[in-house]
C-alpha cells in the first residue's frame, strides 16, 4: 500500500508545476516570509481510490489532478501561519480515523493533523472525506465529507483549507476566494495587449474575462462576487465597464468626456463610487445602480480620486491633492464633512479600509520609494508593510488578514501578498507578461453545499 501512496504522491508533486503552466495562469507562488513560530501541521496525502468497472477497468482516473494534500498544505503554508510537515518525514500515512496513531505525530512535534480520502462516485463526481485532529489533546476537531463535480477538485481542497484554518486559528479562511488582475503583454510597445484575468487566490486556473489592445485598470468586485467594474480604454478613451463574471455580458456604464475611472462598489452593492472629470476636473461621484443616477460628492479644483467606502457604507475615503500633495481624506456623505486622515509623508494614496473600519491600507512614499502602508486611525500609528518598490493597488482579502498588491521584480510587474502585520510575504509572478491591478474577491461560494 505504501508504495502505491508513494506513486500517487510523486505524481502529485509532478503535477504541481505542470498545472500552474496552463494558459496564462500565474506562476507558482514564491513564499518569502512567514511568522516566526508557525503552527506545525501534517497534511497526509489523501488516499485516492480508483473505482473499477465490472470488468476490472478503472472507471475514472486521477490523471492530472494534484493530490488534495498538496493543495491544502500549500494553502496553509502561504498563509504564513502554518509549517506543513514534509511528507517524506511522516512515519505513517493514515487516511481514515482508525489508522491514526497520535504518538506518530507527537514524536514529530506536530500540533494538528489532516487526513482524508478521495473517491469517484459512479456518476463521476468526486467525494472527499477528511478529518482534523488536535494531537496534544488526542482529539478529533472535525470530520466532514464533500461531494462535487470533478471540475471542483481544487475548490474542494480550498474549502478544506478554509475549514481547517478557521478551526485552528479562529479566523475565517479565504483560500476559496478569487483574484482579478490585469495581464499586460508587450507593455510599453505599440503592440501591447491587456487582459482582465480571473484566477483562484493561489493564481491557478486563470481565465480571461476581457482583452483589448487598449489599457484596462481598476477592477472592483461587486460584494456578491458576480460582477466586476473596471476602466477600459477600448473606445480610445477611459470608460467604466460593468461585466457579469459568469455570462461575460458587458455594459459601458459611463463614457463622459474626460476621466471615467476608479469604480468601487458600495458595501451593499447598490451604488458605485467613481471619478469623473466631466465638470472640468476629477471629482468623486456616486452612481445609484438601480436608476443610474449620479450624485456628485466632491467640489474642489484639486484632484479628487480613488474613492473607497467605509464598511458601513456611510463615508467615502479618497485621495486628494487639495493640500498640495496627495493625501487621504474622508467624506461623511450625510453631512459633507471632509477630514484629512494621513499626515505622515508627502504621498499617500489609494486607501482601502479593513473590515473593522478602524485601519487603513494605502500607497505611501518614503524616501522616494512607494510602499504599502497600514495605519491605525484611532491611534495614528503608521507601519510600512512592504520592502519592495513601486508598490501600488493594494486590495484586501475578505477576512482582512492579507492584502495583494502590484509591485516590480527585476523590471517586471508582479503581484505580491503581505499580511496585515507585515510578517508574511509571498509573490505571484507571471511568465506571460506584466501583471498588475489585483483585486481580491469577497467571500464567494465555490461549492454548492454549505
Amino acid at each position: 500500500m505504501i508504495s502505491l501512496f508513494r506513486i500517487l504522491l510523486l505524481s502529485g508533486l509532478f503535477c504541481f508545476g505542470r498545472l500552474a503552466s496552463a494558459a496564462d495562469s500565474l506562476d507558482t507562488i514564491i513564499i518569502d516570509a512567514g511568522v516566526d513560530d508557525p503552527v506545525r501541521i501534517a497534511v497526509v496525502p489523501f488516499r485516492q481510490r480508483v473505482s473499477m468497472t465490472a470488468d476490472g477497468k478503472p472507471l475514472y482516473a486521477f490523471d492530472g489532478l494534484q493530490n488534495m494534500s498538496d493543495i491544502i498544505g500549500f494553502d496553509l503554508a502561504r498563509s504564513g501561519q502554518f509549517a506543513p510537515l514534509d511528507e517524506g518525514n511522516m512515519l505513517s500515512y493514515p487516511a481514515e480515523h482508525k489508522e491514526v496513531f497520535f504518538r506518530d505525530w507527537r514524536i514529530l512535534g506536530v500540533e494538528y493533523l489532516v487526513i482524508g480520502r478521495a473517491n469517484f462516485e459512479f456518476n463521476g463526481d468526486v467525494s472527499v472525506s477528511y478529518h482534523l485532529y488536535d494531537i496534544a489533546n488526542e482529539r478529533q476537531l472535525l470530520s466532514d465529507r464533500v461531494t462535487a463535480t470533478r471540475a471542483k477538485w481544487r475548490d474542494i481542497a480550498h474549502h478544506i483549507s478554509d475549514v481547517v484554518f478557521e478551526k485552528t486559528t479562529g479566523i475565517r479562511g479565504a483560500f476559496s476566494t478569487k483574484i482579478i488582475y490585469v495581464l499586460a503583454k508587450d507593455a510599453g510597445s505599440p503592440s501591447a495587449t491587456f487582459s482582465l484575468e480571473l484566477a483562484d487566490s493561489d493564481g491557478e486556473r486563470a481565465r480571461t474575462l476581457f482583452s483589448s489592445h487598449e489599457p484596462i485598470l481598476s477592477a472592483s468586485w461587486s460584494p456578491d462576487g458576480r460582477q466586476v467594474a473596471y476602466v477600459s480604454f477600448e473606445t480610445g478613451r477611459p470608460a467604466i465597464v460593468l461585466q457579469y463574471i459568469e455570462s461575460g455580458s458587458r455594459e459601458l456604464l459611463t463614457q463622459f468626456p474626460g476621466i471615467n475611472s476608479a469604480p468601487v462598489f458600495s458595501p451593499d452593492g447598490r451604488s458605485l463610487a467613481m471619478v469623473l472629470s466631466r465638470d472640468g476636473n476629477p471629482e468623486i461621484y456616486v452612481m445609484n445602480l438601480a436608476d443610474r443616477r449620479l450624485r456628485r460628492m466632491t467640489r474642489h479644483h484639486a484632484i479628487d480620486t480613488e474613492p473607497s467606502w467605509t464598511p458601513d457604507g456611510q463615508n467615502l475615503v479618497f485621495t486628494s491633492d487639495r493640500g498640495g500633495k496627495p493625501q487621504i481624506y474622508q467624506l461623511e456623505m450625510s453631512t459633507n464633512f471632509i477630514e484629512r486622515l494621513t499626515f505622515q509623508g508627502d504621498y499617500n494614496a489609494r486607501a482601502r479600509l479593513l473590515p473593522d473600519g478602524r485601519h487603513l491600507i494605502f500607497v505611501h512614499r518614503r524616501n522616494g520609494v512607494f510602499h504599502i502602508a497600514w495605519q491605525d486611525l484611532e491611534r495614528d500609528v503608521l507601519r510600512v508593510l512592504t520592502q519592495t518598490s513601486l508598490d501600488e493597488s493594494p486590495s484586501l482579502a475578505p477576512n482582512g488578514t492579507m492584502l495583494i498588491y502590484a509591485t516590480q521584480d527585476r523590471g517586471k510587474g508582479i503581484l505580491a501578498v503581505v499580511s496585515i502585520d507585515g510578517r508574511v510575504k509571498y509573490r505571484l509572478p507571471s511568465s506571460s507578461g506584466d501583471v498588475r491591478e489585483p483585486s481580491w474577491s469577497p467571500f464567494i461560494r465555490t461549492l454548492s453545499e454549505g
Partner: protein
Amino acid sequence: MTQHWLRSFLLMMLAGLVLAGCTTTSSETEQPQGSDQAQDPPDTAPPEPPPVEKPDYELIDGVLKYRDSPVSQTFLFDYDRAVISPADLSELEKHAAYLNENRDKKVVLEGHCDERGTREYNLALGENRSNAVRGFLISAGVSASQIETVSYGEERPVDPGHSDAAWARNRRAVLIYR
C-alpha cells in the same frame, strides 16, 4: 493646483507677449494667395523673385512642419507637475498658429505620466497635463471645438524602462492631429 494653474497661465501670457511678434511675421508670409495684402511693396524696392507658393505650415502624415522642419509634438513635464516648460512655448505657439489658420483641423492632446505613484492619481495628473496644453492653445486663439483631450495616466509609456531617463520621457503631453 491653483498655483500650478496660475503659474502656467502667467507663463502663457508671457509667451503670448514674447511670441506676438513672431506670429505676425509668420502670418504675413503665410498668405499663400497674396491677393488681399493691404500694403503694396514700395516702388523703390528692387524686384523680388516671385514669392514661393509653399506655405510656412504643412501637415504631412500627422507631422506639422514649419518651413520644412518638424514642429515638436511631444512636451515633457516635471515629476508630479502639469506646468508647460517655457522652452516648449515657441513650439506650441506654432501649433496654435497652424490651428488658428486651419479651423477645420482638430487635435487630440494625450496626457501621460511616469509609472511612479498610483494609477488613478496618474490618470488625473495626465489629464492636468493635457489640459495645460489645451489651456495654452485656447489662450492663443484655438477654438475649444478643435481640441480633444485624453489622459492615459501611466498606462502608455513610450519607454518601458524604470530609470530616471525613462520616467522623464514618459511624463509627457502628445499632440496628435486628426
